[in-house]
C-alpha cells in the first residue's frame, strides 16, 4: 500500500513535468488565431456535434488524471443523446470540454476534436473545431449556440442580482444593440416559455425567493434565451424531488420540439435516460464503453458493465430478493492500467482481457461496444 503516498522527490518531478505541458497548452489556448485555423468539416452532415477521440487531462500534484481518455460520440440534429455513468467517469468533464469551461491551468484539453456545426444570424452554417478555438473567439459559440444547464440550481444563480437582471444580461451579451425594454420583453417571454406562473413577479425576484424547481426553470430559460442549437443538461434534476423532476423532464421534452434543437443529457439515472434519450452513451472511467440507440442499450446491452448497471438498480417492477452488484470500486484515475479498466470488476473476464485496452466493436450500424468478448478475431 506504499503507492498511496508520494515522496517529495516524486512530487517535484511531477510538478516540473506538469508545468511544462500546462504552459504549452495555456499558450495555445490564449493564442490569437484566424478563423480559418479552426474551421473544419463534419464527418456526417446530419450531426450537430461530433466528438472525436477527446482527451481531457487534469495535471494535479499527484499526477496526470486522465478524466476523459479518448471519448468519441456524435449528437445528431434534433435528437437527445444521453450520457450515463457513475460519478468520476468523466461525463461532466466531457460537457465542460465542449463548453470550454475547464478550470485552467490544471484542466486542459490535451488532444482530440470537437466539431460543432454553428449557424450565425444570417443563417450561414460553419463548422468549428471547438478544441482548437482560442478563448477569445469562444463566445461565438458558448452560451449562444450551445447553452448549458447546470446541476445545482441553488448555486448557479447569482444571489445578489434579481432574476430579471441575470436574464437580461444574456440578451445584452449576445445582442449588444438591444434596448432595455426589448431585453425585458424577451426575458419575460422566456420565463413564460418554461411555464413559470406570474413571470413579471419572478422577473423582479431574487434567487433565494424561489424554490428549487423554479430556479431550475429559470436556469433553463436562461439557457434558451439565445436560441441555442444544442443544450447540454448536466444532471438537471439530480437536486430535485421526484415530483418536481417529472415536471422538469416534461418541460425539457416539450422544449426540444419547440426550439428545434438537440439535447445532450448527462445523468446517472438510467430511468431518465430510458425516458428522454434517443441515443445512449455509457461511460466508464473516462472512456466510452458502449453506445447505441436507446432500444439497443436497454434491450440488448452487451458490455458487462452496462448489464451490471441495469441489474443493480432496483426497479418498481422487479421482485427479486437480492440485488445484483458489481464488486469493487471504480479504479484510481491516476496511473490507469493498459488493459480493460473494467477487468477487476468483471464477472465474464477472459484471458484476452489482460491484453491491450479493447477496441470499439461495431455490432450494428448504430451499436458499438468496447469489450473483448465481442471481438471476433
Amino acid at each position, binding site marked *: 500500500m506504499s503507492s498511496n503516498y508520494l515522496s517529495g522527490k516524486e512530487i517535484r518531478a511531477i510538478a516540473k513535468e506538469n508545468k511544462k505541458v500546462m504552459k504549452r497548452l495555456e499558450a495555445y489556448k490564449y493564442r490569437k488565431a484566424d478563423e480559418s485555423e479552426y474551421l473544419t468539416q463534419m464527418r456526417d452532415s446530419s450531426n450537430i456535434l461530433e466528438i472525436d477521440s477527446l482527451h481531457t487531462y487534469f495535471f494535479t500534484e499527484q499526477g496526470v488524471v486522465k478524466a476523459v481518455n479518448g471519448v468519441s460520440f456524435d449528437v445528431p440534429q434534433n435528437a437527445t443523446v444521453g450520457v450515463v455513468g457513475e460519478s468520476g467517469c468523466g461525463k461532466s468533464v466531457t460537457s465542460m470540454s465542449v463548453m470550454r469551461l475547464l478550470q485552467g491551468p490544471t484542466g486542459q484539453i490535451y488532444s482530440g476534436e470537437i466539431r460543432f456545426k454553428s449557424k450565425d444570424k444570417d443563417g450561414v452554417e460553419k463548422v468549428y473545431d471547438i478544441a482548437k478555438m482560442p478563448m477569445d473567439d469562444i463566445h461565438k459559440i458558448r452560451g449562444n449556440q450551445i447553452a448549458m444547464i447546470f446541476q445545482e440550481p441553488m448555486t448557479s444563480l447569482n444571489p445578489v442580482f434579481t432574476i430579471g437582471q441575470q436574464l437580461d444580461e444574456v440578451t445584452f451579451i449576445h445582442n449588444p444593440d438591444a434596448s432595455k425594454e426589448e431585453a425585458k420583453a424577451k426575458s419575460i417571454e422566456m420565463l413564460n416559455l418554461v411555464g413559470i406562473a406570474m413571470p413579471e413577479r419572478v422577473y423582479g425576484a431574487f434567487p433565494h425567493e424561489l424554490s428549487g424547481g423554479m430556479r431550475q426553470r429559470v436556469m433553463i430559460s436562461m439557457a434558451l434565451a439565445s436560441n441555442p442549437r444544442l443544450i447540454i443538461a448536466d444532471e438537471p434534476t439530480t437536486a430535485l424531488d*421526484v*415530483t418536481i423532476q417529472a415536471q422538469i423532464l416534461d418541460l425539457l421534452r416539450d422544449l426540444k420540439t419547440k426550439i428545434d434543437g438537440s439535447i445532450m443529457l448527462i445523468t446517472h439515472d438510467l430511468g431518465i435516460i430510458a425516458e428522454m434519450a434517443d441515443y445512449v452513451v455509457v461511460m466508464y472511467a473516462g472512456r466510452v464503453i458502449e453506445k447505441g440507440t436507446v432500444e439497443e442499450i*436497454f434491450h440488448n446491452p452487451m458490455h458487462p458493465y452496462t448489464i451490471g*448497471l*441495469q441489474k443493480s438498480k432496483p*426497479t418498481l417492477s422487479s421482485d427479486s430478493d437480492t440485488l445484483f452488484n458489481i464488486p469493487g*470500486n*471504480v479504479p484510481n484515475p491516476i496511473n490507469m492500467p493498459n488493459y480493460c479498466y473494467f477487468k477487476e470488476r468483471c464477472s465474464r473476464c477472459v484471458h484476452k482481457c489482460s491484453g491491450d485496452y479493447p477496441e470499439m466493436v461495431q455490432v450494428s450500424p448504430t451499436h458499438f461496444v468496447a469489450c473483448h468478448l465481442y471481438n471476433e478475431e
Partner: protein
Amino acid sequence: MAEEKITEQFDTEAILEVRNLRKCFPLKKTLTGKVTQELVAVDNVSFKLKRGETLGIVGESGCGKTTLGRTILKLHQSNGGQIIFDGQDITDLKSSQMRDIRKKMQIIFQDPYSSLPPRSTVGGILSEPVEVHKIVPKSEIKSYVLDLMEKCGLRDYYYERYPHEFSGGQRQRICIARALSVNPELVICDEPVSALDVSIQAQIINLLKELQQKLNLTYVFISHDLSVVKFISDKIGVMYLGSMVEFGSKEDIFSNPLHPYTQALFSAIPQPDPDIKMNRIILSGDIPSPANPPKGCRFHTRCPKATDKCKEVTPEYKDYGNGHCAACHLLG
C-alpha cells in the same frame, strides 16, 4: 404505579410503536421566550413495527422524514405523543436514563463523508462505542472489532487507516459497522445510499439485508427513492408535509395505492425501460412551505382530484383494512 399499568398494555410483539408523535420547531419567539410561530415538522404520526421488519419512509425533501427518525431516537425531544420502544415508554426519559436504551437503537447517517471523525482511525471509530458501552472486556475489543469489520465487508488492514483514505461506499460500510458495534435491535437508516453510485448502492443495500437476516435487526429506512424502499421494506409509510398520508404493507401500497399523492409519486419515477410509456400524473406546483401549511388537507393545493371539502376539512387517518391506512376524503 400508574406507569406500570400502561406498560402492560403495550403490544409485546412490536419493537417500536409511535403514537400521535408531534415535533415542532420554534420560528419566532417574543422577548420573554414565548413561541409565537412554529413549524410543525412531524404532525400526528402513528405506526407500529414488529421485530425483524423494515419500515420504509418515503417523501419529498422537507416532508419531515428525517425529523421523524431523529425524534424516535430522541435526538430531538418530541412535543407530544408517545414513543414506545421494546415495551417501554421512552418519550419522557432523561438523557441519563436513555443511555442504556441508546445501545439498542442506532442510526446510520446520509452523508458518509461528514459523519466520520477525520482524525481517528477506523479502529478507533469502531472501538469507541464498544468501550463506552462495555460490550466486551477491554482485552477482547480489538478482536471483536476485527470480527465486526469482516461482517461488514471491510478488510482487516483498514484498522489503522483514516476515513479520508476510503471511497464513499467503504465509508458507508464503516458507518454501518459503527452502528452495529453495540449490538442494536433497531437501526434507523437515514438515506444511507442516496450519496452513492448505483453499483455501490446495490452493494450497501445487499449488505444491509444480509445483516438484518443474520442479526435479526429492525430497520427504519428513510429514503426519497421509492424503488430502493420497495426493495428493502416490509412496510411503507408515505409522508407529505409532516404527516403520514398512507401506511401499509409493501404489497398493499404498491398494488393498490390509495392516496392521490402516493399514486402521483409512483408515476413520477422514470422507469429504465424505453418501451414503458407511463400515464404520468404530473403534479403542478411546488411543495408548500411547512411553516405555513395549507388549510384542510395539506395536499389539496397540488392534488388533481381535490374537492371543496378538501380545502376546509383535514381528512382523518383511517384504516382501510389489513393495516393499510390512509388520510384522504375521497376514500369515504
